């Protein structure tokens, strides 16, 4: 069940996590480079499943928090992940044994793996979002678990900063503001939990699922292969919404998020689709009929002409894209889940007011 990652696995995970990112979570290339180099430098990265983890292990959630457009420029400092874990251990008065990724989508899956390898922790085959979401309370431990210690550490090259709050939505507000003050992008360590809790409330097997998708696609990337790969997972069905060209794009940094929209005109025919995003692509609207074609938590991912998944910060006017939607696992579609990660949890129309 537990296995050791190779550089090839990392390449596959990078591609797979790109598809699950819904345009968010940062460019997977960054995670791929640092994790491959860690392995090349002799790091042994062991992935353990949620079934295997001992009940009393101490698990911490790791991810990068902030706007992906900022991340594309201001990469993390080498030591900030370890600093965040160390500070959290000081707060908890106990050594952490395991790391679980905040989100599998985008670069955060591999970033958590990298930080675990640097801090010499075991990485768990799972995550807390099953894709990528913009806010840190949009996690399955919030949906299905009980948050016992609502603390967080934010770290960049200059400092490590501890925060605590009454509940997760409040922690999100505080952390978002502090992230902006710290330059718009930080490493986040939060949600300390026991192994038993992690098993009960986290999304299982995320890393190996991403790896499987990426592995199939590396052989030959096209829609049919992606469809077949996803059928082995819970991310099915997949639908192609449009083959088109980005004809307008508006984005801005607001309250620590990338917010904006892209308008995509079909290559053939008259269809025009608007994609609204807040770090992640959240909604696809048919501009002719006004109908919502897809909405969060459904994954909306844009692919370029080489079939590479694109994160929002990579978009530009004139780029040809295919937009696909992937259904998320049932775990993220229950009424309980939709309260926290469904359309009602977002101020979707605020994105348009700019």
């Amino acid at each position: 069940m537990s296995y050791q990652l190779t550089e090839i696995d990392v390449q596959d995970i990078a591609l797979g996590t790109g598809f699950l990112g819904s345009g968010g979570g940062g460019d997977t290339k960054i995670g791929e480079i640092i994790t491959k180099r860690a392995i090349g430098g002799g790091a042994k990265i062991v992935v353990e499943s949620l079934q295997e983890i001992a009940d009393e292990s101490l698990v911490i959630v790791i991810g990068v928090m902030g706007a992906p457009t900022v991340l594309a420029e201001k990469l993390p400092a080498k030591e900030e992940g370890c600093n965040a874990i160390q500070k959290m251990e000081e707060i908890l008065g106990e050594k952490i044994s395991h790391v679980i990724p905040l989100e599998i989508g985008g670069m955060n899956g591999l970033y958590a793996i990298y930080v675990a390898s640097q801090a010499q922790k075991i990485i768990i085959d799972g995550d807390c979002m099953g894709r990528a979401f913009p806010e840190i309370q949009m996690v399955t431990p919030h949906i299905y678990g009980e948050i016992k210690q609502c603390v967080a550490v934010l770290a960049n090259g200059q400092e490590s900063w501890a925060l605590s709050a009454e509940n997760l939505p409040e922690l999100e507000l505080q952390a978002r503001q502090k992230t902006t003050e710290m330059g718009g992008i930080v490493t986040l360590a939060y949600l300390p939990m026991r192994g038993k809790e992690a098993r009960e409330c986290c999304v299982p097997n995320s890393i190996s699922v991403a790896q499987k998708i990426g592995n199939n696609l590396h052989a030959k990337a096209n829609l049919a292969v992606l469809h077949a790969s996803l059928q082995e997972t819970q991310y099915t069905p997949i639908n192609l919404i449009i083959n088109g060209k980005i004809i307008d794009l508006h984005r801005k940094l607001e309250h620590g998020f990338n917010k904006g929209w892209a308008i995509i005109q079909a290559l053939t025919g008259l269809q025009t689709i608007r994609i609204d995003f807040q770090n992640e692509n959240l909604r696809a609207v048919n501009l002719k009929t006004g109908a919502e074609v897809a909405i969060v938590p459904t994954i909306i991912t844009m692919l370029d002409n080489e079939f590479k998944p694109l994160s929002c910060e990579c978009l530009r006017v004139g780029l040809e894209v295919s937009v696909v939607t992937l259904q998320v696992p049932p775990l993220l579609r229950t009424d309980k889940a939709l309260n926290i990660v469904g359309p009602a949890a977002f101020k979707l129309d605020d994105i348009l007011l700019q």
Partner: protein
Amino acid sequence: MAQEYLCIGIDIGGTNTDAILLAGKQIIATIKTNTTPDITQGVAIAINHLLQTSHLTAGEIDVVVIGTTHFVNTVLQAKGLNEVLVIRLAKPATTVIEPLADWPANLQAAVGDNCEVIGGGYEYNGKEIAPLDCERLKELASLAQAKLIKAAAITGVFANVNPAQENAAYEILNNLLPEMQISLSHKIGGLNLLTRENATILNAALSVEFKKFYEGIKSAIIDAELSQAKIFFSSNDGTLEEPRDIFPIATYGSGPSNSMRGAAALAEVTAAIVADIGGTSTDVGILKNSFPLEAGYEIKIGNAEENVTCNFSAPLTRSCALGGGSKILVDANNEIKVGPESVGYQLNKEAIIFGGKTLTVTDIAVAKGRLKLGNPAFLKTINPLIIDKADEFIHAKLIEMVDLILPFAKSSHPLPLILVGGGAYLFDQQLLLKFLAGKIARIIVPEHAGNANALGAAIAKISACYSGVFQYSDTSDCAGISREKAIEIAKQQAVKAALAKGADPHTVKLQEIEEMPINYLPGNQTRLRIKVIGENRGDK
């Protein structure tokens, strides 16, 4: 004729230098000659031939456009790259990935181990991450001087939001080392630190070779008394740039871009699969609405295994080492291997049909009677089985390339396949069509197929940019103007500039919008950059 706009397009490849002379849209003369190591001679021969056959004088030529794959070959072979002093202004941020981390060993070795992340860089809001570490910069300058490094690449975090530190670093280096070729990232690419840094380093690594290359062309042009003509380079997106504005890295995708647009003009079609078969390699791409289809948001520079990712756009292509000069090796079991080595410009000495000792792809086409060249009698010594096998391989390879590229065309009906380049005549069209039945509508080998690249350069489009700072009005505050209005104003300015450069007003259209919110200034201010492109009007 003297009233017409006269343009010379020159394509300088690794093997051949092609040139074409256009009067308006009409082809007056063409030439294909060997590329010479000094560049000058090949260009001079080409220009003289064009002038002689057209009976024109040098003074009548209006424009000379240079297209080249020279720098593609430089990177592919990792030969001719100069060492680079690589400086990133970012510390303490960004250290998780140092410069060159994702570079293949051969290119890393070529640019050398002279990298450092020093204090500097900006936050997204324009505030300094750290002040520029001038002391360390000066120390690095003297280290570079001691190692005789001739080029530097400087990349600062959020330099596109605030270029002040990169400019300050330039001043310091330039004062200490006036001969140093310095590339600044904010002039080379947009947001995304790693890919902009990669492009900046590659640009710096090509800068010494580029200077030599440009001097070579300049002296050929001066010798031909063409000094009054305007000189342009064709760039990645197929538009013209003046030599003082061009970066070597910006010529990188011009080869396939030129061959595809040249093919479109020659075959008079707007949508097609285009295969450009040269002396050493074949590039296959897609033509759509008369433009080359772009690859994704980033491109890989180098070969399939050893490459560097950069964030500018270039045509989507698939390439293989198959050309007219590709060597065919035969082992003891009569198994054959075609390429990747090529006899290149030595074809007329080394190929069997010219009395040489190397079996090449061109020999096969002659043996099959598709091409009349050299002395076919020399081929009698070659086992006909080998010829059949090689012929089968060559066709299978091209078919494989077309199959690879077809899905990207996303076309509802079969497109024509246009063959261009010196190797366009090597193939049995009926055979290709048989194997591509249902996938390809027909095969076109247009007249002047061998000069498609030069034609593409000659008909390159005009582009113009306008960049300015606008205060957008938002919902709560009525100061400033709406985003739509700002884009309209900027576009009008860009169009005006394009028309002044000779663009046809009916064809000018918006190519790029780039918005950079300037968070360090009060109010909702945005730096807006608009690029428009249009066809060359082709008059005086």
